[in-house]
């Protein structure tokens, strides 16, 4: 439990950033899983991520996974907090997409 947690920060900007209506919490920090908290925030269209993870050496992979999520979702003006417990990149992608689907459902 004394394991050091890493804090990683990333920033992206979609070409035409889309805002979200409400903030959202999704997922649980189980083993091999993660939770994501997406908050609406005025960031001049940017999407800011803070990732807390015990896994060292995957900064570039995080950047690619999160960058692709923004590319595909076009979300902007959001602050995203991810608390990771050894989720694979695929689990990260799935959780983000599921969170996105929740957001869409909330809109409807």
């Amino acid at each position, binding site marked *: 439990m004394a394991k050091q947690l890493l804090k990683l920060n990333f920033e992206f900007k979609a070409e035409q950033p889309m805002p979200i209506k409400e903030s959202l919490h999704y997922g649980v920090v189980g083993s*091999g899983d993660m939770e994501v908290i997406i908050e609406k925030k005025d960031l001049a269209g940017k999407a800011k991520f803070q990732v807390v993870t015990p*896994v060292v050496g*995957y900064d570039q*992979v995080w950047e*690619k*996974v999160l960058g692709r999520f923004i590319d595909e979702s076009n979300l902007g003006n959001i602050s995203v907090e991810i608390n990771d417990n*050894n989720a*694979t*990149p*695929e*689990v990260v*992608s*799935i959780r983000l*997409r*599921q969170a*996105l*689907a929740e957001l869409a459902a909330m809109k409807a």
Partner: protein
Amino acid sequence: MNGKKWDTRRTDYLERINAAKPLVKTGKEVAASDVVKLLETVIRPGEKVNLEGNNQKQADFLAECLSKVNKEKVYDLHMVQSALALPVFLEVFEKGIAKKLDFAYSGPMGGKIAEFIDQGKVQLGAIHTYLELFARYFTDLTPKVCMVCAYEGDRFGNLYTGFNTEDTPIQIEATKFSNGIVIAQVNKLYDGVDNKIKRVDIPGDWVDFVIESPKPFYLEPLFTRDPALITDAQILMAMIALKGIYAKYNVQRLNHGIGFYTAAIELLLPTYGKELGLKGKICKHFVLNPHPTLIPAIEDGWVESIHSFGGELGMQKYCQARPDIFFIGPDGTMRSNRAYCQTAGHYAIDMFIGGTLQIDRYGNSTTATATRVAGFGGAPNMGCDSKGRRHITEAWMRCGDEFTAQKSFLGNQRRGKRLVVQMAETFLEKMAPAFVDELDAEKLAKKANLELPPIMVYADDITHIITEEGIASMHMCESLKEREDAIRGVAGYTKIGLEADPKVTGQLRKKGVIQTPEDLGIDRAKANRSLLAAKNVKDLVEISGGLYDPPGKFHNW
């Protein structure tokens, strides 16, 4: 002719049987306490000995007895056996009673075998597929002595192997008909006159000695997967498989490899499969152990027949109650048979689909790790294109018509092709990438002095690779270069995946060589556990109407 003797083996056999006579009670019965002596009497140093270790049932009592023989009398044996699943099977090597080994699968003992090879305690002949090893029983690896296990036996030597018949018939046939000696441990011994065994699976004439074992043989529940442990990523890949492959080819006759990917597919049939309108079109005939996770699809009416390699602990009553589906004897109980089932798996199925651990950049796939000599059992026998096949099915023909490289051999002549699908999440546990520059199998080959690295499925047999990124249709590629590009395109964020050129990947998507979930119209966000027809083992029990009786370690409610 010239006085040459043509029946030396028979003479030798009779000598040994006579020497063992004092140990025999009534008929062919030998007391458990006399078995070590019996083995010392009928086995000679250096001989080929078959000890029944299967995927599931294990002749553990006879193995224990063999490990106790006087090694001044019995030594340097050449063990020819399907599986080494228990520590006791390795004791004979530790003690020098056995020296050489030809096998197919070692599961949990794989690490120890690698060590033993390294230390010179095991001389490895070869790692086979089951069917390949069985074939050698009838050529150059015919056992002189064969030790098997059965549920029931009688004093005439008749055996009831029932649900877990597995490899017993073929081992005995090879041994007995070359004047070898057959010894059977049974859970229950009957007199065969007033009290008879349930059914004769092995005729008494083929068995020389029968022993009532002090305890029932060990049975490994190898194919049980708890639905509670299936992840969303596995569910996504199951959706990709169903829509991108099962539906596309109308796969009706198939085998599912062991593991969570195929368990997820089985549990998605009554839900997602039904939604896709696939009921009645796919998954009619299985060669498969009785997977508990197939219960919901069977109950929902998807499956017409299942022939099994072996039994699965806890599924006995369920199979018995579904005689229209499983292969059931006149006594009402199922009979498995690995040799026949593997034959069906080699010749009569349209698709093999299963998980793997590592795939190299060319598409060679293996579950071998750097430190374990585990073998693959039957997987490679099904995970290949059977070149002797001539009968036509829709799936086989369609895959063959798509197989680009075929034209460079056959010209315009058409020929079908087996679908061989390997599934792997791009990152496995502990962030181990599934796509690698060098397979761990290469490291193992160096360490254990193997001439070839153990490849489970070679790249020229694989038709499809499925990851969470989508499907790569390897057989549709025109060159090695294109196959490498296709692999990169589905390898996600692994080092190999990051080498992908997005433009090339885009072209392959246009050609249909790569299909992403989006290309297939699959919503990734819908990949979650609510799609599973059973969410845990308890659900399976309920759906089976209480007929499925899971082993203790899966009974957590």
